[in-house]
């Protein structure tokens, strides 16, 4: 019997994807295509956070480390070493996955706030390192790296905002599918158990260190994939790709959408990123809106929107079944 934990969400996602598929035909300009493209990549990034932070319960405050590793690898390999982009993208994915394995190995013996502290420290250290690290530029009297960043050479002359949009949409759908598969898999079940009670999980034969590491690896690979897409679309990797702000952004989307629901964080990013960046609200209004939405959503949906709705649905099911059992 399938566990009823994640319900029948894909059908609905397909409907949503259909709308997004047709949206450009409704007369989107380049600006909105760009915002939505980045929005799709942000959604994958938020979802990847939820794999390790929600599903496996390892609060990561250094998630940008994996994202930045991927964008920086793409930039350095294409611009400095002259690799073709696809090859660099593959290497970037491997490197960010390796970063995930490293962070996972270090944080596996830790619990709760100590995981958050370790990942925060590693992410901050990486940000600080890359802010100060400049690379020789073969082109002129300036360097690459640091806050100004490094160009990413895509080398695809026919690349256009429309192609970027559809590629990012396809990427989002693929990654959402993968993430939901992970969440529903046996491994996903084990991660949920481990996030609920490490003691019980260990007494159930769960090798918790291996699984924590695995969760970091999976999340880092997905975040890295989002980073590769971001590098390709923006054409630049900067030290800010490692920033704490970016790490907090993922955690924020996850909290608002519903930690551990995968779909919640993805939808939250899909909804908020375009709302904040794509509607041309004046800056002060945008920041205030963001902060107030955050506060009010969490005040009334403490487990995030999807999380709280799921809790309520469960409570209702419980009430319906009160008859049987004790």
């Amino acid at each position, binding site marked *: *019997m399938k566990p009823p934990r994640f319900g029948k969400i894909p059908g609905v996602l397909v409907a949503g994807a259909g709308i997004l598929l047709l949206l450009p035909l409704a007369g989107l300009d380049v600006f909105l295509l760009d915002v939505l493209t980045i929005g799709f990549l942000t959604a994958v990034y938020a979802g990847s956070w939820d794999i390790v932070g929600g599903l496996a319960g390892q609060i990561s405050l250094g998630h940008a480390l994996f994202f930045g590793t991927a964008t920086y690898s793409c930039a350095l390999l294409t611009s400095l070493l002259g690799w073709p982009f696809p090859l660099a993208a593959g290497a970037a994915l491997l490197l960010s996955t390796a970063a995930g394995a490293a962070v996972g190995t270090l944080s596996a013996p830790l619990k709760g706030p100590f995981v958050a502290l370790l990942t925060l420290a590693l992410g901050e250290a990486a940000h600080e390192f890359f802010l100060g690290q400049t690379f020789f530029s073969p082109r002129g009297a300036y360097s690459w790296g640091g806050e100004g960043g490094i160009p990413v050479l895509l080398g695809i002359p026919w690349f256009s905002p429309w192609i970027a949009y559809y590629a990012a949409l396809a990427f989002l759908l693929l990654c959402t599918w993968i993430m939901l598969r992970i969440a529903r898999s046996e491994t996903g*079940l084990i991660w*949920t*158990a481990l996030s609920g009670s490490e003691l*019980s*999980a260990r007494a*159930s034969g769960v090798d918790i260190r291996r699984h924590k590491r695995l969760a970091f690896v999976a999340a880092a690979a997905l975040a890295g994939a989002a980073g590769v897409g971001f590098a390709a679309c923006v054409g630049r990797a900067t030290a800010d790709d490692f920033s704490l702000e970016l790490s907090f952004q993922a955690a924020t989307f996850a909290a608002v959408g519903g930690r551990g629901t995968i779909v919640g964080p993805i939808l939250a990013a899909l909804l908020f990123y375009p709302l904040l960046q794509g509607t041309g609200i004046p800056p002060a209004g945008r920041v205030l809106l963001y902060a107030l939405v955050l506060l009010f959503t969490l005040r009334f949906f403490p487990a995030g929107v999807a999380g709280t709705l799921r809790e309520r649905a469960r409570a209702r099911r*419980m009430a319906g079944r009160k008859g*049987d059992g004790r």
Partner: protein
Amino acid sequence: MSDLLLADRITKSFGTNRVLRGVTIGIGRGEVVGLFGPNGSGKTTLANIITGLTRPDKGRILFEGKDVTGMSMDARFRAGIARTFQIPDPYPSLTVVESVRVALLCSEAGRKETEGKGPGFQENLDSLLVRTGLFAQRFWPAAKLSQGCLRRLEFARAISCRPKFILLDEVSSALSARDEAELVALMRSLHREEDISFLLISHNPLILEELCDRVVAIEDGRVFWEGKPGDLAKYVPTSHHAHGDEGGNHEGG
């Protein structure tokens, strides 16, 4: 020695507090051993060392003749050393069936037999639930279960690895008389049908007298008495006995 499990000269200190000072305890195949001692005597620490939650300062743990001292708790579970906890800690967001499923997935025994959860896996899972009397509540969130059902869930989890040895930590504490009787029956049937060895930890002599083949009593981190359960009463200070006499005890510890 033909012991299934042997804890050999176990020593453990926390800071300056010497909790165990060279405890040796063996459990034979199919034997039910009771571990008796007052609060703070080191029972739970010994249990944690036997099951791999805590590493001893000195001494070894042998299981089926192999040294498992360096093995982690989860590896020991997969090897056939299962345990229950004095205070169950259910997964807050999983249902009963999912909770048992996790244990079944992880135990190599369950894995090998069914090769990637064919129909045999589901049957196994269902039979575990039926056997522990949780089948009707299998879709309940584990966290919403009553104390009695939580103990059953602990049992279901423990036996899902087809263990050769189960450690039961204060199995009857905080339970009603009915729940306690049912759990005792479940334990007996497991012992009878599958020849599982048990180590029962309790500070209630009545339970131990009722169930055990042999009782070991520890105090101040040392074994201070070992013998037949029937003789336990003679060696137990009357205060303990009188206390345990109340039947459904409420000592959580």
